[in-house]
């Protein structure tokens, strides 16, 4: 097991390096340097040369990449081109906790709905309950969050006025430890619709997978044995079947994290939540490349780490994987 973990972590380093290299090269290849102010030719060339010297743009590329890596290792993502007073670090520090809360709430919702309904549908295989919940799940995976978000706002915020239309119920100054939100009614009322918008498709995915996995497991011989020796159905399902059936659900968590990340982009935009996803989209439109690259790096590292965690958990639960 230790060997497996070490191997996985060593695997993780070249991926991180690759991500840093790609973001660096793209930032370099982006047309337009930071100092060619289009339409504003008041800066004499000598000043531009000095500016470039100050920011080490006159260095050879490999040296610049080295400096960039060094900055990354110290956790310095550079200044924002658009918000002159803020660094990329400031922006991420303020917006990341909001995205994290939204993502964690949606994942929790997805697991709480997806797993029980998946098990239920599998145990009622080929009954009306199974067909209807499978149908609802297909519906769930077919409604993207760019549709569900506006629909929820239209129904529950504009028509019924049950929930606020937009914004997040708390900001970074109110978070305990920097990421735990205050458990106020305001927070929950603001969080409800975005969480549902992001979590529905995820819960449908988890439900489908759980159903398939439970169906596979309850056909195994050892389940027949458990039934044959007279165990109660409840014991058979909970103690014998679920333990193995839920292992494949772990593997889907990796892709689901990616879905959460892209989902936060959309949901934050629709609900006007100033999380990292909204900053990313704004920065793309403002051509604020340092923020784009910084947010990309944070998301990439996050996804890579979560994949690593999923792999290790999987190997821990299913010993067969380790000897691959």
């Amino acid at each position, binding site marked *: 097991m230790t060997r497996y973990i070490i191997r996985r972590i060593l*695997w*993780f380093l*070249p*991926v991180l390096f*690759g*991500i840093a290299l*790609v*973001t660096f090269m*793209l930032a370099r*290849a*982006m*047309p*337009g340097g930071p100092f060619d102010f289009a339409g504003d030719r008041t800066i004499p060339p000598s000043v531009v040369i000095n500016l470039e010297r100050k920011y080490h743009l006159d260095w050879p590329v490999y040296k610049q990449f080295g400096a960039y890596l060094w900055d990354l290792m110290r956790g310095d993502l550079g200044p924002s081109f658009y918000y002159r007073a803020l660094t990329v670090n400031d922006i991420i520090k303020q917006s990341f906790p909001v995205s994290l809360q939204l993502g964690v709430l949606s994942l929790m919702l997805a697991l709480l709905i997806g797993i029980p309904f998946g098990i239920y549908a599998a145990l009622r295989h080929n009954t009306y309950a199974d067909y209807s919940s499978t149908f609802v799940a*297909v*519906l769930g*995976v*077919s*409604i*993207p969050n*760019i*549709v569900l*978000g*506006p*629909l929820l*706002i*239209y129904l529950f915020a*504009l028509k019924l006025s049950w929930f606020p239309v937009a914004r997040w119920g708390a900001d970074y100054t109110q978070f305990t430890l920097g990421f735990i939100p205050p458990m106020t009614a305001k927070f929950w009322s603001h969080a409800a619709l975005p969480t549902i918008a992001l979590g529905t498709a995820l819960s449908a995915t988890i439900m489908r*997978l759980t159903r*398939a*996995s439970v*169906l*596979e497991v309850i056909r195994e011989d050892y389940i027949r044995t458990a039934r044959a020796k007279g165990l109660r159905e409840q014991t058979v399902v909970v103690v014998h079947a679920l333990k193995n059936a839920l292992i494949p659900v772990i593997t889907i968590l990796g892709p689901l994290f*990616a879905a959460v*990340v*892209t989902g936060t*982009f*959309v949901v934050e*935009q*629709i609900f006007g939540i100033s999380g990292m996803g909204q900053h990313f*989209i704004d920065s*793309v*439109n403002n*051509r604020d490349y340092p923020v*784009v690259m910084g947010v*990309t790096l944070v*998301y*990439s590292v996050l*996804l*890579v780490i979560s*994949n690593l965690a999923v792999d290790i958990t999987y190997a821990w639960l299913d010993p067969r994987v380790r000897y691959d």
Partner: protein
Amino acid sequence: MTVETTPPSVARLPVEEAVSGRSPMSDAFRQLRKNRIAVVSGIFIIVLIFIAIFVDTALFAFFTGAETRPLIAPYHFAEVNFRYNNAPPLTTTDDGKFFLLGADYLGRDVLSRTLYGTRVSLAVAFVAATVSLIIGVVYGLISGYSSTRVDNIMMRFVDFLYGFPIIIFIILMQVYFKALSRRGGGEGIAGALIGIDNAMGGVFFLFIAIGLLNWLGMARIARGQTLSYKEKEFVEAAQAVGANDQRIVFRHLLPNILGPCIVYETLQIPAYIFLEAFLSFIGLGVNPPTASWGIMISETYQGMRVVPHSVFVPAAALVLTTLAFNFLGDGLRDAFDTRLRGE
């Protein structure tokens, strides 16, 4: 025991003429036809393809050189009517235009734009699926059929790429492509690509970004299938009659692994459609005024209190299309009943 080597010409038997065979493929289609919801979805998708092709006369214009006019769509997707912005459904204008599903914030016919959007969504779905199918199947076939050492190297490379967050790279590539095409012009290959992309309303770079980065799963499936088939008797028989590697791979292995691979790819199509809508929504997809469902939703959702139709018409189109592909994909999977079941 000695094995007599026979010349290949003797070994070729006229099997096809003697028996009308029931291939696994035709069995699967017989199975699929029993699944009513999959059949309905299939018909719906055929209608969508028809709309996508004949929404305007681009196809005829390509051959005759005539000007492109809207054909199925009542109006052109970029036709602006300023006095009729946010017009409700069933509006008739002074100059005799009729907006069945209303107009958007620039007075563009929502129905026409939604119909044109079919073209973008389906084009992205099919091109991305084809690109990833071709790359993935060829890669998987080569990897699975090659020696263990080559196979190992090729699969480690796939594992390595799997470690990268693909979606982030698609976004980054689009950021880069958009920056390039905003700048415009350019010389050499880059300039030519930007020209093609602008002519296609920004769809071309979507093809590249989505198609080139989504073949990893396909490669794994194709390799797995190849590994399981290459030990079968018919491959051994082909080798025995002296077929070379190329012939075995393309004539014997490929037809057998293609079915499951196409099913897998069909299951991916909703993801491609979502991806296009998502990228267009965040401003990294098609260029305005090109009509795509994603960009239509993103341009109008802020005004939905007043004009819900301009959001919910493209939204409904998006949902119905993905539903159809999901049902068809599930039906295909059940019909082929491969190891893909349960995913």
